[in-house]
């Protein structure tokens, strides 16, 4: 893989013809002297380096589990040092996972729309191969099932163990994982390190249009000491909308 520094989108590393979008000014027109070019060779230079040159279809990459565990551990300590109480640590872990979840909604669904992925891992642009986008999930249950299966598969190489709807309240659902992967080396503490995964779920659901609040809890069972329940509480408005739009 090309060793490129990831440039923030807000800086201009290479000067190319044409300017970027400036939100304080507004839209710019395609300039007359560059837009009438009919052949692709003339006109302005289209950069193919940078993030736009990468493929969106991932190769199956493996990362060392211990490296990951150390990284996660330092994240937890970092947050622990900068927080005053347990709640705050959990919130910060949540927010760390939140941005991941926001991206997952988009990228995983997009990848599902691309047919025949195996041959495309080197292609610059795969959008041309899509005939129909996969249908957007509109129902709570569909989305949760997607998380339970596909997202978990993507993150932890296996689906989660259970998806349950609470019988008491209609806006509460639970996903259960018997052996949560990312915190498997962390001893039981008062801090819920799985808040990180909660953040991922929360970001995923928020972005997909189901605002919610996710927390994790230890519920031990025989043989599974780290068994965690992720409690998803949707906004009441989400449930109302679901009923309204039958």
């Amino acid at each position, binding site marked *: 893989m090309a060793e490129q520094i990831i440039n923030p989108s807000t800086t201009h590393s290479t000067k190319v013809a044409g300017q970027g979008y400036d939100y304080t000014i507004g839209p710019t027109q395609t300039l007359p002297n560059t837009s009438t070019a009919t052949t692709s060779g003339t006109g*302005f230079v289209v950069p193919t380096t940078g993030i736009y040159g990468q493929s969106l279809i991932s190769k199956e990459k493996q990362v060392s589990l211990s490296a990951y565990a150390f990284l996660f551990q330092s994240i937890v300590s970092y947050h622990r040092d900068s927080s005053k109480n347990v709640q705050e640590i959990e919130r910060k872990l949540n927010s760390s996972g939140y941005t991941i979840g926001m991206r997952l909604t988009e990228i995983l669904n997009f990848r599902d729309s691309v047919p025949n992925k195996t041959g495309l891992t080197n292609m610059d642009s795969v959008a041309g191969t899509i005939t129909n986008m996969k249908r*957007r999930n509109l129902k709570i249950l569909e989305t949760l099932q997607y998380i339970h299966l596909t997202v978990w598969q993507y993150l932890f190489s296996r689906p989660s163990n259970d998806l349950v709807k609470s019988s008491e309240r209609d806006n509460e659902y639970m996903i259960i994982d018997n052996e949560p992967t990312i915190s498997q080396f962390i001893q039981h503490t008062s801090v819920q390190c799985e808040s990180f995964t909660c953040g991922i779920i929360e970001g995923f659901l928020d972005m997909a249009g189901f605002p919610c609040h996710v927390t994790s809890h230890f519920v031990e069972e025989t043989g599974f000491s780290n068994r965690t329940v992720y409690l998803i509480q949707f906004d009441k408005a989400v449930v109302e909308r679901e009923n309204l739009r039958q």
Partner: protein
Amino acid sequence: MFYFTIIGTSDNPIYEAEFTTAKNTFQPEIKELNPYIVHSTLDIMEYLQWQRQPQLDINTSSGGFLRSRHSTQENSYLGKVDSFYGLAVSGFLTYGNIKFIMVHGNGTVDDTVTRSFYYEVYELYLKTLMNPFYKVNDPISNSAFDSKVRVLSKRLFV
């Protein structure tokens, strides 16, 4: 001529571009109204966002699209969603409910061309999103993104 925007989660445009040629440009009074026309189309887009079959009934000023009733029917590309005095407006929803909206100056929406345009721009958007330094709802000011979108826009003029 076309006016294309990407709208974030709180009605704010995160990208705007006008695609024009020497022969096809917007009249000044339409040009200044474009962002507001797009903003008003958000009402319709939000309505369609949660419909099981995103088919427009009398709740918009002009006709519908996607006649098929299959439950697996795509509901990202919405086709022509609105019109405003001779302009047509088409829309597209991403999986994260980001909206791509485009005003078509000639009043018609060519579904095939527009759809493939949206797909390509979506891919570019995703690549921007994958950048960890880019936050959702930030304006996309990367010039590479801009140039690529403009290259893609040439297809619209055929």
